[in-house]
């Protein structure tokens, strides 16, 4: 535990090494009023080794630990029977990467015919395979996350997606009967240019054309654009937030460039400024949070509750500059926290980002020595 009174004591992240052998929750509470995510959920896997360089969860929750397929099927079946729900969601950071995903879906369908199986997120490169398994279902919208518009920038952030992969995924989505597709992108990534942003519009336009070709009139393509915020314990932890002016100009650029028929939504720039300040803040950031609270900030995660003026007043009071500053090359506020991944690995990944060099997923058998594995803590795959 980190204590403010002992700020330099090192804190080591604990890893649940027994996760793969543990029993999932199979007797969940059943709400009597409709709740968000009102369905059975079974956690199939912890960790993700895809290695996206902006992603904190992907770095923090390593290594991958997968539950056996029979454990997942048994838990899902029992939970469905106990709750009376008609849908089960197989959850993890990236459920399509769960090595037993097809067997798990098939097993659940055999044990509980008619039940819907949903996945919270689909990675573009494996989406087509999984969507093939879901082909007999009538469904709503699928979300895919290419994150960047050009191959060069996707290589820089280590998203292993080619334009052909995305095209194939879009085709698979609409051929499987889905009526909508949402594409997630980020702007403000390190090394991004205006051309990268225009390429998002090109990609969305190509997806829209492919969707209309496969699904005709019922195809809807939407684009959701967030702002890159550097996160601690990631290869991009020392990068700078792009700043309000850059984010706004790139949002405007994209609004103009997006083709007719593609709806877009953008993350609030003011909220991104606060996120960037808090994400890379050290202990003094606590004073900013308290000052903002005293200034009236409440429930800031909800768009209608976000009060930028309160944060501006708090920043003025505490001397902080929202969205400004960076970590430079010196000590980091979170150096006291040992997340398992070695600092040398993060630095190496940052260098590779600058040269557009990708790093393979360690599931492929190539170890890049991130440093998280040790005796008793190692990758465990279901298949």
């Amino acid at each position, binding site marked *: 535990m980190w204590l403010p009174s002992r700020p330099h004591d090192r804190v080591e992240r604990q890893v649940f090494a027994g996760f793969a052998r543990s029993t999932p929750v199979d007797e969940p509470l059943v709400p*009597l*009023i*409709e709740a968000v995510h009102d369905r059975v959920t079974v956690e199939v896997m912890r960790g993700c080794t895809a290695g996206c360089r902006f992603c904190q969860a992907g770095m923090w929750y390593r290594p991958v630990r997968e539950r056996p397929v029979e454990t997942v099927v048994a838990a899902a079946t029992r939970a*469905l*029977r106990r*709750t*009376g729900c*008609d849908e089960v969601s197989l959850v993890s950071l990236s459920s399509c990467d769960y090595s037993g995903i097809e067997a798990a879906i098939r097993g659940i369908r055999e044990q509980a015919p*008619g039940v819907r199986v949903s996945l919270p997120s689909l990675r573009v490169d494996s989406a087509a395979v999984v969507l093939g398994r879901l082909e007999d279902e*009538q469904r709503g919208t699928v979300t895919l996350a290419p994150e960047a518009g050009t191959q060069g920038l996707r290589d820089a952030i280590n998203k292993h997606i080619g334009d052909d992969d995305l095209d194939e995924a879009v085709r698979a989505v609409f051929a499987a009967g889905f009526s909508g597709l949402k594409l997630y992108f980020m702007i403000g990534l390190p090394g991004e240019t205006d051309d990268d942003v225009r390429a998002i519009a090109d990609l969305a336009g190509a997806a829209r054309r492919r969707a209309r070709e496969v699904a005709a009139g019922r195809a809807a393509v939407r684009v959701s654009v967030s702002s890159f915020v550097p996160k601690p314990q990631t290869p991009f932890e020392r990068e700078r937030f792009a700043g309000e002016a850059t984010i706004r100009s790139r949002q405007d650029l994209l609004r103009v460039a997006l083709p007719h028929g593609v709806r877009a939504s953008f993350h609030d720039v003011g909220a991104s400024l606060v996120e960037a300040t808090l994400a890379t803040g050290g202990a003094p950031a606590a004073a900013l949070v308290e000052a903002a609270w005293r200034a009236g900030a409440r429930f800031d995660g909800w768009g209608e509750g976000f009060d930028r003026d309160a944060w501006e007043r708090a920043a003025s009071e505490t001397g902080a500059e929202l969205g400004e500053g960076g970590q430079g090359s010196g000590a980091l506020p979170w150096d006291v926290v040992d997340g398992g991944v070695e600092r040398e690995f993060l630095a190496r990944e940052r260098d590779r980002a600058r040269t557009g060099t990708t790093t393979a997923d360690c599931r492929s058998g190539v170890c890049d020595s991130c440093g998280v594995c040790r005796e008793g803590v190692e990758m465990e795959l279901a298949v």
Partner: protein
Amino acid sequence: MSTWLLHFSRSGAARYMSHLDTARALQRTFARAGITLALSAGMRPRPRLSVVLPLPVGAAAVDELAVVETVADAAARPVTALLRDLEATAVAGLQIEDLEEADGRPHLRPVAATYACRVRGPAAALTEAAEWVAGQDELVVERRSPKGRRTIDLAASLDALSAEAASDGATLTFTVRYGETGTARVDEVVGAVAARAGVEAVAHDVVRTAVKFAGSPAGEARRYERARPSGRGEKGVDAK
């Protein structure tokens, strides 16, 4: 496929469930009992279970009705076994009272509903007010909704309003009839009585004690009227 009439009561915290949440909880009760509901056709199949007359949020009830369609294998089990399994897996406060197989798919039309509730205040004033409201040929109140305002004549749908002295006020009992233009709501009836009596218009311990239905697919004047099952209905009333 088989069609069933499910009789259930509602009490305790379950009174605060909405109509849709009540229907969903009943659907899940069937699933937990291992009784497979038939699904509607279309893009998004839904279980075929409908609560015939929505209950006001906050109201208990002693004998409500839902029409349920199950796949064929449910009908192969004895009704007593189905009932036992339903009762064992029911939600607290949403008590399964009876299950009877219907002849075809009944199109039930609510004709009238009877309510009881307690209003605090001087019993004499409340009794006099109830008599006055019951004696009116016309009693217009304004109803506000997101769609705007409109006026309702309570007298047109109100039957058998009476008041009986209770420990801290009076227990109102009344029946509302359902017509083409809707019916009077509990809060409107209580509001009219309370305004006349000069007391706060708050209904406590609201219970729907009976519902009358009419109608069938063939247009036959068939009624599903049931007396409260002996010894079961009382526990459906919240005693707060």
